[in-house]
């Protein structure tokens, strides 16, 4: 792992290139480590919520060597609808059910071939490096939230840089400028007037820059990282446990909102997993409590857009095939989530100008006949979002 973004409050300014290099390395990492098709991996993402491959028991049993333990036909039936099998009185199924504290495995809408692919994928060890898999029963001492927070600054904070102390720079320069102005017109101690001019001009330039930078970031929330009501770690869930983003944020490919998972989704696993690596039982207890008391958790929204912006996740995730990381940063490295990009209009437009549209893969774009001709004739190399009107005001503002 190259970078490890962590919960450093208030010291949040970032060097873009380090982050990008981190992103790049991460992508490289993911590229290298699976053997089966991407589709299989995506299908396995659902399984990963409860199973590991060689990582020990999570909610369900460790799947390593499952093909040796059970017959393929049985696995297919069980995966497709475990409850049906149990109700049909299959002894093996009932045994598995009881061994795993009678937590039903939800039915999966997968074909036989898809399941066979998944089995091949498991046999090949999956992409999950065994060392990374966090098991509930680790030997590590359970650290409280406070100690984690206290410790984090000592961890690598690369990818962030300290805030330039703009205020002090600004006021020092202001004072210098006033002094030289005063000397220029009133006291006239320094005879060499060019010194005054240099000081004044430098102060104006740097002061202006400070004002510009500060003013443009007004209302933006880059590196915003509020305390959440539950100390939830994306690093543990998305990073170490390799739970797919879409397992929890399951409307990101359908709706404008990616969706904060309902507590019931947490309870899918936390019915069983009652103790965590970082915070022990205290934080998970809050989730259980919320579920039992029928009181939803009031999360603090991190990524906020102004009211006059319409942003649609489905358009970007499902249609544009944009990875979550491209906007949200390397979430699997963050304990508490922070906003890494400034989400400014310039940032949006930059991407729209360079991002290639899924032009030939989607039949919707067939009607853009002129652009297709240009692509064939070589007049256009690729079709970017901006070519499709991605710079128009009323794509995002209405």
């Amino acid at each position, binding site marked *: 792992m190259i970078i490890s973004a962590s919960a450093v409050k208030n010291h949040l300014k970032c060097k873009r290139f380090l982050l990008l290099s981190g992103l790049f390395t991460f992508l490289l990492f993911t590229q290298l480590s699976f053997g089966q098709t991407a589709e299989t991996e995506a299908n396995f993402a659902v399984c990963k919520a409860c199973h590991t491959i060689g990582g020990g028991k999570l909610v369900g049993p460790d799947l390593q060597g499952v093909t040796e333990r059970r017959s393929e036909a049985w696995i297919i039936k069980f995966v497709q609808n475990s409850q049906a099998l149990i109700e049909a009185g299959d002894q093996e199924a009932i045994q598995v059910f009881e061994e795993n504290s009678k937590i039903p495995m939800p039915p999966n809408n997968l074909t036989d071939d898809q399941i066979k692919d998944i089995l091949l994928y498991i046999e090949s060890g999956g992409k999950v490096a065994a060392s990374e898999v966090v098991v509930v029963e680790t030997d590590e001492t359970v650290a409280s939230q406070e100690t984690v927070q206290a410790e984090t600054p000592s961890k690598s904070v690369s990818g962030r840089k300290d805030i330039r102390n703009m205020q002090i720079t600004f006021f020092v320069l202001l004072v210098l400028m006033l002094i030289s102005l005063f000397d220029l017109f009133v006291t006239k101690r320094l005879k060499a007037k060019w010194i005054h001019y240099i000081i004044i001009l430098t102060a104006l330039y740097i002061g202006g820059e400070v004002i510009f930078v500060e003013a443009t970031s007004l209302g933006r929330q880059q590196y915003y990282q509020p305390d959440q009501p539950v100390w939830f770690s994306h690093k543990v869930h998305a990073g170490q446990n390799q739970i797919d983003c879409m397992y929890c944020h399951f409307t990101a490919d359908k709706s404008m909102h990616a969706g904060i998972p309902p507590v019931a989704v947490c309870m899918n696993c936390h019915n069983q997993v009652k103790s965590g690596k970082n915070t022990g039982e205290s934080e998970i207890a809050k989730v259980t409590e919320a579920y039992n008391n029928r009181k939803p958790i009031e999360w603090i929204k991190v990524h906020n857009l*102004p009211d006059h912006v319409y942003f*649609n996740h489905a358009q970007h995730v499902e249609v544009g095939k944009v990875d979550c990381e491209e906007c949200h940063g390397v979430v699997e490295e963050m304990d508490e989530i922070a906003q890494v990009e400034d989400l400014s209009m310039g940032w949006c437009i930059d991407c729209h100008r360079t991002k290639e549209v899924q032009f030939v893969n989607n039949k919707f774009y067939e*009607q853009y006949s*002129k652009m297709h001709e240009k692509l064939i004739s070589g007049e256009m190399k690729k079709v970017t979002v901006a070519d499709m009107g991605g710079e128009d005001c*009323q794509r995002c503002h209405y």
Partner: protein
Amino acid sequence: MEKKYWQSIEEYKEQNKGTDMNKEPFPEFSIEGLDESEIKGKSSRRDFLKMLGFSVSAVALVSSCQTPVRKAIPFLTQPEELVPGIPNFYASTFFDGNDYCSILVKTRENRPIKIEGNDMSPVSRGGTSARVQASVLNLYDDARLKNPYKDGAETDWATIDKDVKANLAALSQSGRKVVLLTSTIISPSTKKLIDEFIATYPNIEWITYDTLSFEAIRKAHELNFGQAVIPEYNFEKAKVVVGFSADYLGTWLDPVAFSKQFSKNRKILKGNTEMSRLYQYESRLSLTGSNADYRYGVKPSDEVTVLLNLYNEVAKATGMSTYSVNSSPVDVSKTALDLLENKGHSLVVSGTNNLNIQLIVNAINNILGNYGSTLCIDKPMNLKQGSESAMARIVNEMNEGKVDGLLLYNVNPVYDYHKANAFAEGMKKVDFTLSFADTKDETAELCQYIAPDNNYLESWNDAEPVKGEFSIVQPAIRPIFNTRQFQDCLMKWADISGDFSDYLENNWKVILGEDGFVSSWNKVKYDGVYSLPQDEMQGNSGFREQKLSDSESGNGLELVLYEKIAMGTGKYANNPWLLEMPDPITTATWDNYVCVPVKYAEQNGLVHENVVTINGAFELPVLVQPGQPEGTISIALGYGRTAVGKAGNGVGKNAFQLMHISDGYADVAGTEVTMEKVEGKTYELALTQMHHTMEGRPIARETTLQEYIKNPYAGNEEHLKDEKNNVTLYSKVDYDGIQWGMTIDLTSCTGCGNCIIACQAENNVPVIGKDQVRRRRIMHWMRIDRYFSDDIDNPVVFHMPVMCQHCDNAPCENVCPVAATNHSDEGLNQMAYNRCIGTRYCINNCPYKVRRFNWYEFANNNNFDYNMNSELGKLVLNPDVIVRQRGVVEKCSLCVQRLQAKKLEAKRENRPLRDGEVQTACSQSCPTDAIQFGNLKDEKSVVVSNNKEERMYHLLERLHTLPSTSYLTKIVNKEA
């Protein structure tokens, strides 16, 4: 010579004086009536400095503040069908006791925000009306009752149940009379339930009361055919329609269905030259009259004579005996000739609630053989079942102390019964009174108990508007307040177990059959409609002749009461959208008034905004109305409510007491009244009439069918000229893939105003109030221009919807100093509100006057106390569309949010866009399909084929603005 159009009487006179409108334009804006500060401006230089200082410090303060913490609260368990950010549509039914419409309710995050037409319905066929569109705002009305009431104080349902049951049981045991007074009920399940309820309490008598009764039609059919029904009307099959005071395109019986049928017969597209012809004889200028090919102004007292003359003409030609009759004030021979030529394909209707008139109408239809073709008594309409005699009897009995209990459902007789005082007096003598009203209306205020009913969007129900055509009412939201559905109350009080949704389901098991009920029931709920297999229609069997009689013409000033398109009978008098909707004919908002004929006004020295007293009872302002027949005046009903809510209380005057009663039938027209001018008093009316005038340019284009057949470019010759002259140095904008466009068929458009409210609901358009409307600041993104031409006493009317034309060569874009308005890749003239600095150059440079400026912050502002300043009222806002702030310009976006949503849907489904899939709010629910929307780059689309019509033209083509919206010349089926 070019035909001259005029929008107001002043303009008409100006034209006829021979002055050139272009040289001496009518003053567009008068500063009279504005306060001084508005004229001179209040701020001095000191104020400016103060403001400057304040705003600088405010900015400094704001910028030093922390960004507010926003919370994201997910569901505990997310319902399967609900995805935040994706709308759900539920098929349901709008029925308020008067109007019926099958609808789809669009909900976002489980709250209804928009009503769309349900095109699976064979009755309303995807159309809606302005009132249907606006009904969603009633769900979020602050005036709705939040709890049940007992003796004027809030209480709980347990108390209500206990008290009501005790009362009903006591009354039942002693055999004392209880009356259940309801509006027309078209739900078979509710009817069955009421029967069961009455079986439990046999002392209950059920009376149906309609605000405006149609009993004469039922009675006439009982005498003629032995069945007291309203026949099903089929305007689609009628090649000639003759209407007598029936505003069937606006307010009469089932206007949405009739408009759909009417428009199917008037599509001069793709070489079709068949078109129906409308004759209208009426005593005021109605929406139907304004769309008629031939219109005649007739006094209410002359209607019988005209009809009987028409009967004689038809009877003579078919060799039947005629009646002796006074000579008709208008010539009916042409009408009769046309009717006789189209025997079996014609239709005569009258909206007058008078038995003799309805008998004549039936007799004419019978001679013409229209029964079984355009009229069907075997498939009657279930609307308007009220009985006037029963109502009159009950009021008497109440006053005699013979009624001891009164249950009122969906009726408000203390406001809208013509003997309201007698009813209110009678109520005092009733021991036990209970209203199911959802607001504390005039009647509910006098009741001991109020058991507030759910809004229809919170209810289960079914409906059978026409025999054999069912539709479902299903809730789109849980009850917002502690209210309970009327039917659930009845079930509780009659000790029927379960709730009404179970009851409904059990009832539908009988209709659909037990086999596969779950799936067939789900399909009914999905479609929203269900039709029973239809029997063959039968002809006019067993017509029993009745004696017809003439009557004498009146001499006095005759009053015509009418329902406004927006307001109806006053049920929606607290709906700010409808209050501010300009009337299609008078373009007035926010008031009712006396429409006075032009000649009468001249003779009596009355001008616009004078105040008159009617019968010495109440004062109303005058509106001089071209087309108002001589010897008549007209006043809209539905105003003057005193207990409806903050927006509607005290708006206008209540005129129900002036209904015309003859032979026990209450009709809207015919009461002789006296009208006195109140000297020196004026009352300001908020008309949108002279707004945005187009200064007499050739905008409204029309021709007759004959001319069109001779030359398809008839009336549209200018278009050819302008096309030739349209030479430009610049290359034409070349779109790829998508260019959005709209076509508006002026032959079909009736001007009903449904689109205005649909647009308002879809795009969060604010309501600004009467004062601001007077200042010409109305915010509607689309308007319907109304032009008059020809004779001022009987003008030809022209309705024309105008919204942003989305010009390829847009004049507004060039003048914006900050490029806040510019052009998109898909041909939209886009408006970036957050970039706009409010110079209003674009407004000045727009030749179509479709841009609107936000003079104030209309949301969260208690000076605009309508719906956008209340937590509840704001729930109706569309979350996909921003609420514009003060100081920015806004205008029609062609519902860009709907375009984007449909594009995304197609992309996600990996397919090209289908024609007709993308609809704007106005085109989706147009009851006459006049507005069509689509992709101009799709050669197979409707808009492209419409644009190939010779009738196609753009507004102000000579300016070479190249609009994406085009119009099709209006064709009138009139002989030259």
